[in-house]
């Protein structure tokens, strides 16, 4: 049985990775999961300089989901490249670094610094973080800047580049086509949906940042729809995510057209979710007579 996939040049032994920002730098989850069972690890969004992040409260639970407004707290690319990657590289699992910034130059700077760092197998460009005022959101909703960022990153790195799309747009397919044209090697979707929760007793928004990003099972139908639509229009491999809790959820994305899947919020609920999903996909393939995972990718369009 073959479960290995090629995500735009990143070779994964199975299609399961972790969603950026939900799995730290991986090592936090070592007491619960054998990290070597993962297809890849995507680490927290990294910016040129360290960032302190947003004032708390940073999260609030919502029906079958949660809002987060972490605000891209991270130690900066220097420490990621110099201190964290050497430890992660030892695992022998492909590491994909999620990169973010306030300007096109920021993205290019982080990408350049990570080029050639041992263990880094690819970059995921977060043009869609809804929690950073100056940055993300504009890049993520305007195809022109998305194209600019993609080009800038591609021009300074030899690594495979995945562009992560925001669902908070009118024309997701148009955005996908634009960044594909600009040279992206793969697309990942979805980032979080913009949301607000009001505390009815205090009569104020709960989050320090007011708005936050909605993730978890609540958004899964929206995420599967994104994969479904983009798969029909764009030939790049897709990394699907958004509310995946179980192997069956992951299979929804794969059948809709995702080559690989990322597990995010589920890690908080079940720290073993990633590995259980790897195993569940294998069981499904065995029970349903599939010998290669590639047979399943996009099958719901054809079956």
């Amino acid at each position: 049985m073959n479960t290995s996939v090629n995500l735009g040049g990143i070779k994964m032994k199975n299609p399961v990775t972790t969603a950026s920002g939900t799995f730290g730098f991986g090592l936090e989850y070592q007491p619960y999961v054998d990290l070597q069972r993962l297809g890849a690890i995507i680490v927290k969004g990294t910016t040129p300089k360290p960032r302190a992040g947003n004032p708390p409260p940073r999260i609030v639970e919502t029906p079958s989901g949660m809002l987060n407004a972490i605000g891209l707290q991270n130690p900066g690319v220097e420490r990621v490249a110099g201190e964290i990657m050497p430890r992660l590289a030892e695992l022998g699992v492909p590491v994909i670094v999620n990169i973010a910034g306030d300007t096109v130059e920021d993205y290019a700077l982080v990408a350049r610094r990570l080029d050639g760092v041992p263990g880094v197998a690819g970059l995921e460009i977060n043009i869609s973080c809804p929690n950073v005022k100056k940055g993300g959101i504009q890049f993520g909703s305007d195809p022109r800047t998305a194209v600019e960022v993609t080009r800038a990153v591609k021009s300074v790195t030899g690594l495979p580049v995945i562009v992560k799309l925001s669902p908070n747009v009118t024309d997701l397919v148009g955005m996908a086509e634009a960044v594909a044209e600009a040279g992206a090697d793969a697309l990942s979707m979805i980032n979080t949906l913009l949301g607000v929760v009001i505390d009815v007793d205090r009569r104020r928004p709960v989050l320090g940042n007011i708005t936050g990003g909605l993730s978890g099972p609540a958004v899964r139908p929206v995420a599967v729809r994104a994969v479904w639509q983009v798969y029909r229009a764009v030939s790049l491999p897709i990394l699907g995510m958004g509310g995946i809790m179980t192997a069956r959820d992951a299979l929804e994305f794969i059948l809709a057209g995702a080559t690989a899947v990322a597990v995010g919020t589920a890690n908080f609920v079940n720290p073993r979710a990633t590995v259980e999903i790897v195993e569940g996909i294998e069981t499904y393939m065995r029970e349903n007579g599939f010998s290669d995972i590639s047979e399943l990718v996009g099958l719901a369009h054809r079956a």
Partner: protein
Amino acid sequence: MSQLVQAEITGHAEPVPGVSRIEFYAPGLARAAGPGQFVHVRCGEGSDPLLRRPISIHAVDRQAGTVKIMFQVVGKGTAWLARQKKGLLDVMGPLGRGFTTGQTRRNCVVVGGGIGAAPLYFLLQELAREGCARQVKVLLGARNAGRLLIKEETERLGFAVRVATDDGSAGHGGPVTELLSEELQANPGFIYACGPVPMLRAVCGMLESAGVPGEVSVEERMACGVGACLACACRVREAAGGENYRRTCVDGPVFAAEEVVW
């Protein structure tokens, strides 16, 4: 090291209305746990409620391999938890940095307000084990006599307990911090505190004025509980100067009193 276990529920009680105490069997967890640490508990099978709930470890019996938690029902997670009287509980732990005990901290005062008493009982178990029950003063605050927690158990461990209630129905009538004020006159060596935010803020202010060191257990909304998501930011003063966010789940929930920025 922290574990993820399906732990069998071995006991259930409601010490005061709206507060539940659940005992479960998790020998590895009991062995590894220290006072002030917490467990991260799944509350329900579906996706609503979704996230685990952090609950301090209230007591452990390492011999029996059991752990107790004690919690107030405030929302849908704790309401679900309070209904679990048998079966398996999905628990991660022990998590976080707990209270530090030891030689230099024996002449201490332990201050608890409301449900904040929950983790302090485990601390008192440890202090009793270390043989310093006689040197420790325990101050417990509650809304009224009927809502006082851990008083009898604490006395049974050999501690002297002073009580404060908001309505004066037991002990001192007024906030428990007024008792702490008195105790601070006696120059205690260390203070441990857990309780609602206004109480902790007041305690930290008093310790600063009095120049007495201490530790407080703080609460912040958590997702992962293991340091990965950066949800549980607590603003602290850095020793090196300046302020920063630390993760309540791994750098806390117990912080030095002088660190916390309220």
